[in-house]
């Protein structure tokens, strides 16, 4: 045990975090570390990120693996104030898949690229024997140039900062779980969407500290990474969280905590107290962020921990999930 990777190592929580640390420790540390930020700032104002996509099912309400593969990388740039300009794409395709299906995903991907003015610059296509991959794996590398000179990152978090969540959380994870476990939830769709435009609209706000898109591991994991990474405390209020009843119903059935479900078009913004309302009013101009809400604050007390004031007026700790998120028995 412990010598083999399990799916838990890929679920985005604590195990993933530890595995990535072990993998990267083999390499010499870069001169400008961007450890555990969404993308890396490069010299001359450039920035770069890379993301791999495997999703089952490949088509889901609200998107497909093609759309996801662009949004995922683009959002990693966007939340650090980088305009996505070029994308490189690697495809690993399993023998036997219909070409038309693959082209369909590429059309979805191209649509997002067109919307944002992104050019596909290079790519790679491999076909592997049946069983060597699950249908379609896509890796995208997005690059672009920074539209802010400020170094957006969790190091900028200060006690007293407000935390803004851009929309109801957990939609992507709940949608995929509903599909996998055959739950019929009409109206539930993934939040998969590019965040560049809303993120860009915030870049000139003086009190902007950092932003993060909540992907694998969900909102709770991002908050924990911020608290641990920046050595600050974080307190959120359950009643202020923009919650979606469809997501909650899936969570009820499967025993999931929505705080740990993946999002693909939802970000957390940290901003000084005086600029919090500006962030909210700017986000409100964008349809995917219409439900944005001020959910909590950064504190000096209990560094490294995330706490939540619950609906009944109680308190609890929000910790990073460990291992694969599994549906419970009853």
């Amino acid at each position: 045990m412990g010598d083999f990777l399990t799916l838990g190592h890929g679920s985005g929580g604590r195990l993933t975090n530890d595995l990535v640390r072990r993998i990267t420790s083999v390499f010499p540390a870069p001169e400008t570390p961007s450890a555990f930020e969404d993308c890396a700032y490069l010299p001359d104002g450039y920035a770069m990120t890379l993301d791999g996509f495997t999703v089952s099912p490949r088509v889901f309400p609200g998107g497909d693996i093609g759309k996801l593969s662009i949004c995922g990388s683009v959002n990693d740039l966007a939340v650090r104030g980088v305009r996505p300009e070029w994308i490189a794409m690697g495809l690993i395709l399993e023998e036997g898949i219909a070409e038309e299906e693959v082209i369909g995903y590429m059309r979805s991907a191209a649509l997002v690229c067109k919307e944002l003015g992104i050019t596909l610059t290079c790519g790679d296509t491999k076909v592997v024997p049946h069983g060597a991959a699950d249908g379609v794996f896509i890796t995208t590398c997005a690059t672009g140039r920074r539209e802010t000179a400020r170094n957006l990152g969790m190091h900028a978090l200060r006690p007293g900062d407000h935390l803004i969540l851009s929309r109801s959380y957990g939609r992507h994870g709940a949608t995929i779980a509903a599909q996998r476990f055959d739950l019929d939830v009409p109206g539930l769709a993934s939040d998969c969407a590019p965040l560049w435009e809303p993120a860009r609209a915030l870049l000139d706000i003086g009190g902007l500290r950092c932003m993060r898109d909540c992907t694998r591991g969900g909102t709770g994991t991002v908050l924990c990474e911020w608290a641990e990474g920046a050595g600050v405390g974080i307190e959120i209020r359950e009643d202020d969280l923009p919650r979606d009843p469809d997501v909650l119903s899936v969570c009820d059935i499967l025993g999931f905590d929505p705080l740990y479900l993946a999002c693909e078009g939802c970000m957390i913004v940290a901003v000084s107290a005086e600029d919090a309302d500006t962030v909210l009013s700017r986000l409100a101009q964008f349809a995917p962020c219409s439900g944005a809400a001020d959910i909590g604050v950064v504190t000096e007390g209990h560094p490294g921990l995330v706490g939540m004031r619950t609906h009944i007026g109680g308190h609890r700790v929000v910790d990073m999930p460990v291992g694969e998120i599994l549906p419970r028995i009853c």
Partner: protein
Amino acid sequence: MEVCGTHTVSAFRSGVRSVLPEGYRLISGPGCPVCVTSQGQIDGAVALADVPDAIVLTYGDMLRVPGSNGSLADARARGRDVRVVTSAMEAPDIALASPGRQVVFLAAGFETTAPATAAMLSEAAGRGLRNLSILCLHKRTPPAVRALLEDAALGIDALILPGHVCVILGHAPFLFISEQYERPCVIAGFSAESMLLGVLDLTIQRARGETALHSVYPDAVKSEGNRKATELMDRAFVPCDSVWRGLGKISSSGMRLAPSLKDFDAELRFGVSPGEPPEPRGCRCGDVLRGRITPPECPLFRTTCTPAAPVGPCMVSSEGTCGAYFRFYKGGTVAWEIS
């Protein structure tokens, strides 16, 4: 004590403990089916995954439970075909779609999931499916609660009864708690509000010196239970002694297949018989399940026993007491005052 693991998680998620006045202590009982599945039974499940061409179907949270030779997740990582299902009813379709392969359903859970297993077996028998069997891990709740109450060292004043189990069984199988053991008990739902209402009911009973079985979950629980479900269960299973991890062997607390269904018994079909390996050294899950200690009092808690590498069963499931404490008890505090 809240008997049910779903109550345990609900209490942590909603911060129920933090709003209870001083003097209340909520003890988490043995009501997580994953937690109490014995190591020997997990070994049996892993052995079934190793049968050539077998497909093992399991509820999700069983995957990580450690046996003596690893977990089902480890078996899956070794290339064994272990699949997560959310309902027993998926098993017949998978068996039908997999001719030439043996499909084994790990039938785990209390009286909440056992009726679904029974219904599935009746369908499988009707369809003449010969490549489907079950490893019967089902357990019965009332004998375990009785065993707890027999323990003189147990300091439990009152019980919150498992709402879902009571939906199936009704009130009668739990009346012994108030009548023979003179403890007030209440059937509660799973929202924070319902749990608090349950605590209030128990408080009033205690203040008045009453011991009765009450329900604050009448929308879901009928006093006679769900007749159809209990009939299905009674036809498919017969009570047997069963080993609960941490609690040991409890008389009549298990279920095995009725003689008419023994063709579906994976233990007989594949010659797999769960042994009883010794429990891991130092693990105090038994004391946690009895409510004698809280998880942080166990020397292994958070040191060698974590959700990533669980030693004892209570750390494995999201509903296990130790797993819940690990996630919600941090930095020496369960919570702090948030303005």
